């Protein structure tokens, strides 16, 4: 279980995350939505210990993430996978080494086994035979899928997806969501998915949370968000605006 308790984060005197409290039960898939710049990615990085909050705490299975020593935090991260918004593939490594990296870090030394797992991962993301290519030789959609393969190669019980379909065409987006759904179905993961693709995450998330200017303004399941009377939430969910467009 992930518990975010009264987390607040300031950046250059401005509040980025404002007293957010949220609980994510095991095997739950939460969709984290909100306008651009509202603090979704920052919250996700706080949860996995990449950014330290100024107030509050984050507990993963009752362990306070920000009180861990670097070695203990590294141990905890063996149980977490993360797909980054901008792929974050290592430039200096080819695709196969990128995907194999988490396995090698976890102490796997059997290179034949690693090669077999990487080969299977590439088949799973429908990109067989690109292991020798480097990230700069791939398209955005391919990078996203490779990044996905790297995030889940260790079969972590917790996975965070930071805008997995940003900047992708509808077909590639659909492929990514299929991969996410398959991962959840096959491995019973707990996940948090940030996305602006509301139609896409409707089908893969059990619960939804919405941030606005750093504050959590909604948390609930799909019927609750569909029935929500808060105009900001309903507008975002349904994808329309009351404001007139001033051109």
């Amino acid at each position, binding site marked *: 279980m992930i518990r975010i308790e009264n987390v607040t984060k300031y950046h250059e005197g401005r509040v980025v995350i404002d007293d957010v409290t949220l609980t994510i039960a095991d095997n739950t898939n939460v969709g984290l939505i909100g306008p651009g710049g509202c603090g979704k990615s920052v919250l996700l990085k706080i949860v*996995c*210990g990449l950014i330290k909050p100024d107030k509050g705490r984050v507990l993963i299975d009752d362990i306070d993430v920000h009180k861990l020593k670097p070695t203990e935090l590294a141990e905890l991260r063996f149980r977490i996978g993360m797909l980054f918004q901008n792929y974050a*593939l290592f430039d200096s490594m080819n695709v196969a080494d990128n995907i194999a990296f988490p396995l090698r*870090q976890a102490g796997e030394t059997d290179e034949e086994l690693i090669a077999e797992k990487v080969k299977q991962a590439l088949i799973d993301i429908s990109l067989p035979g690109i292991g020798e290519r480097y990230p700069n030789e791939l398209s955005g959609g391919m990078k996203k899928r490779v990044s996905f393969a790297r995030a889940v190669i260790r079969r972590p019980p917790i996975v965070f997806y930071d805008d997995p379909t940003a900047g992708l065409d509808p077909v590639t987006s659909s492929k990514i969501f299929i991969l996410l759904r398959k991962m959840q179905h096959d491995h019973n993961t707990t996940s948090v998915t940030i996305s602006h693709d509301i139609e896409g995450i409707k089908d893969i998330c059990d619960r939804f949370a919405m941030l606005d200017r750093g504050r959590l303004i909604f948390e609930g399941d799909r019927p609750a968000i569909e029935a929500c009377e808060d105009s900001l939430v309903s507008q975002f969910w349904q994808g329309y605006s009351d404001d007139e467009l001033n051109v």
Partner: protein
Amino acid sequence: MSASPDIPGRPSGREPSNFREFLSALGEPILYLTRTFKELVEMFGLTLYYMARGRTRWRAIFEQLHEVGNRSVIFIAVTLGFLGMILIYQAGYQAEQITGDLQLLGGLFLQLLLREFAPTITAMMIATRVATGMAAQIGSMVVTEQVDALQMCAAPPVDYLVVPRFIATTIMMIVLTIFAVLVSYSAGALTALLSFGLNVRTFIDLSFIGWFDLILCLSKALAYGMAVPIIACHAGLNVSGGSEGVGRATTNAVVNASLAVVILDFIITSLGYVALSLLPS
């Protein structure tokens, strides 16, 4: 930042505002320096910790040895070669004007090279060429979230990025310093022969060289070799603000690494002479 009574929230009254600004202007760089120094010491400690406890990635170390060492050879050879020629020409010209005796030229030049020029100029050159590269490379990894990805793969950035660079630069600084002595001395010998007709056998004079000179030379090379990568990697890992931040980090890396070389030079030289004065003659 200028004080203005028109800005809401600012205290009115010129003197308290100016005084506060004066204190702020005084305190800010001191706080920055203290914080940076503390972070550098922490990074140095962590680097030693991971060297002792972490896995040794030989491939990464060899890549860095090649990057720091092999790719700097020509740069160091040209710089130190010309420096040797210039110093010998200047010193020889002065000696010829004053005493006309050039017999001590080679011996004293070698002592000066070992004690000061070879380690310090080599470190400055490495700070220019290598520290900028390290800061830019790591800084780019920070802005493209690759460093975050490393952490999420349970690979501590200090262990993965700093340790190989630290080991390689420390080793190569010593190797390049020895190489710099050889190149600079050879270039000096050639200049002495061609400009002043000084015999190479007369120029090569080891009578002024003692253990003190060798220890001072190697101590400096070792200290610079450890300081430069720590400062460069610290600058790279603390990048913020996209490509503009990477530019700032590379500038910080070369400025801070050069400053560190000068400060370390002063400290080690002072300590060396204090130790020398304590030794029985």
